[in-house]
């Protein structure tokens, strides 16, 4: 069945047309106004941050030179010897990198454990009382907002130099960051199993164990793995403030202008981070697949 669309009468059409163009014009005006405010803010921010294009143009040539300085001369014929000489400290560096990974691992696990416990108190669906929910949420907020390096700076003063303050700083920050994600997951669960358990007389820990945990565990693990990736990067710079790991060596090399060594250590860090990202991504995809199959 074919029907021709009847064109509207001319006066009605013109009315619609003018209303349409008025709306378009208003939208354009709004966009334009927003754009101008945005540009003004950007200019203000640029002034506040002392952005200086001239300085940038005059010094930019140093940027490629920096990377050039970080790589030694590597001849084609003496390739292996040159690389071996570049990585003269490989054993020491790998050991420190392993220490960095260990710091990230312990920090993540400890933080995730605290987040796990606090998430149930902070969630809408499982909280015990309004007061404990408020306290748990504010505590998590505080842990999340203060950057991990700030915690590390303070912990280094009270626990002394070494990897332990780094672990503690990562753990505190991780519990804040994961705690929020965790309680949001707990808020989105299906409450029927919990209600069933409550109706049949289960205690609060039993409700959590059999009603909530089976629903949220794979998501919790997935987020913890994501946090582990972030913490590996974080642990690599903990050494800047004396909190262990490979960062300590990196900042020392930078301060002493040992550019070639800086390059070698940076490559180790980048390679490790990429490997970890790759591995955790594989595991997370499997977890998501498991979640989908359920």
């Amino acid at each position, binding site marked *: 069945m074919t029907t021709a669309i009847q064109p509207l009468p001319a006066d009605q059409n013109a009315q619609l047309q003018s209303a349409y163009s008025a709306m378009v014009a208003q939208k354009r005006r709004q966009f334009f106004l927003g754009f101008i405010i945005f540009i003004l*803010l*950007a200019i*203000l*921010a*640029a*002034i*506040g*941050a*002392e*952005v*200086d294009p001239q*300085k*940038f143009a005059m*010094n*930019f040539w*140093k*940027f490629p030179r*920096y990377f050039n300085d970080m790589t030694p001369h590597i001849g084609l014929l003496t390739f292996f010897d040159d690389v071996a000489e570049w990585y003269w400290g490989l054993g020491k560096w790998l050991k420190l990198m392993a*220490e960095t990974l*260990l*710091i990230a*691992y*312990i920090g993540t*696990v400890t933080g995730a454990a605290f987040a796990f416990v606090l998430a149930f108190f902070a969630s809408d669906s499982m909280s015990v009382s309004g007061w404990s929910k408020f306290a748990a949420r504010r505590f998590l907020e*505080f842990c999340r*907002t*203060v*950057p991990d*390096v*700030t915690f590390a*700076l*303070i*912990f280094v*003063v*009270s*626990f*002394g130099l*070494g*990897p*332990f303050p780094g*672990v503690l700083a990562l753990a505190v920050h991780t519990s804040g960051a994961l705690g929020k994600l965790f309680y949001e997951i707990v808020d989105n669960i299906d409450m029927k199993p919990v209600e069933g358990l409550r109706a049949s007389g289960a205690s609060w820990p039993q409700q959590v164990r059999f009603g909530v945990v089976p629903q949220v565990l794979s998501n919790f693990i997935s987020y913890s793995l994501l946090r582990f990736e972030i913490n590996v*990067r*974080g642990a*690599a*710079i903990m050494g*800047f*403030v004396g909190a*262990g790991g490979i960062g300590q060596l*990196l*900042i020392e090399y*930078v301060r002493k202008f040992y550019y070639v060594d800086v390059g070698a250590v*940076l490559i180790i*860090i*980048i*390679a490790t*981070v*990429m490997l970890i*990202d790759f591995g955790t991504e594989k595991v997370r995809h499997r977890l998501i697949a498991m979640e989908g199959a359920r």
Partner: protein
Amino acid sequence: MNTPPMKTSLLDRFPDLGAMRSKHPNSFKADPRRQAQIGVLVGSLIALYAFGLYYIGFSPLMLINGFGKFGIVVSAMMPPDPGSWENALTFIKGVVETVSMAFFGTICAAFLALPFGFLAARNIVSNALIHHAARRFLDIIRGIDTLIWALIWVGVVGLGPFAGVLAIITADFGAFGKLFSEAIEAADQKPVDGIVASGGSRLEGIRFGIVPQILPVLLGQILYFFESNTRTTTIIGIVGAGGIGLYLTETIRTYLWEETSFIILLILITVAAIDWISGKLRIAIIGARPV
């Protein structure tokens, strides 16, 4: 939802559960191989944790001593006090500088990353070599932390907030490029097909078919990064790249605890304010939708 609603209870349908259990014992038991696998995995993770604690020299005594000192530090931090009006003004200026750095760095990084996002998206650039090269390039940039980029840029443009801005731009460029390319790959291809079929060019297909789909997603991500950059920028001053971090480090190193806690309080207020503003903006831009 392919199973019909269950009206009868389990016991009604299987009156003799005990007999079933004795008839098919394996169906009522957990898979022993899977349980062993999980046991080994969890066991080795715990063993690694224990080894790690031993390796970093953990001991209960150290924990008690450390927290004792930490308690002294915290009590020394009370009440937060900038010392003088002059100091308070300096710290507030540092916070303003921090926010400026985060804002300008985030928007610059987003503008620079947009073309790379398209280059690294499989559905835009069909040449596998190019989009893989773009992906790996972004991965390498992302592998270096903002603080390390700040060290490098301090070596290039000297101390000051400008080095910090450049560090934020470089580090976020990698992250944005990856996120943008994923958003572009997740976009629906049908509008593009429609535009191309009705005579539009490939570029018009991207402009009118893909950009309207991804724009709200990208704006949401940019806002999120602005929030998280405000936090990161507070520590960038540790390596001399501007912002409040310089004062934070200085006051901690010189044990001026009341000023330290004042700065931390200032950071908390700023971050909360930024989160609030960007939350409002997010709702205004992409509607009230959980991100």
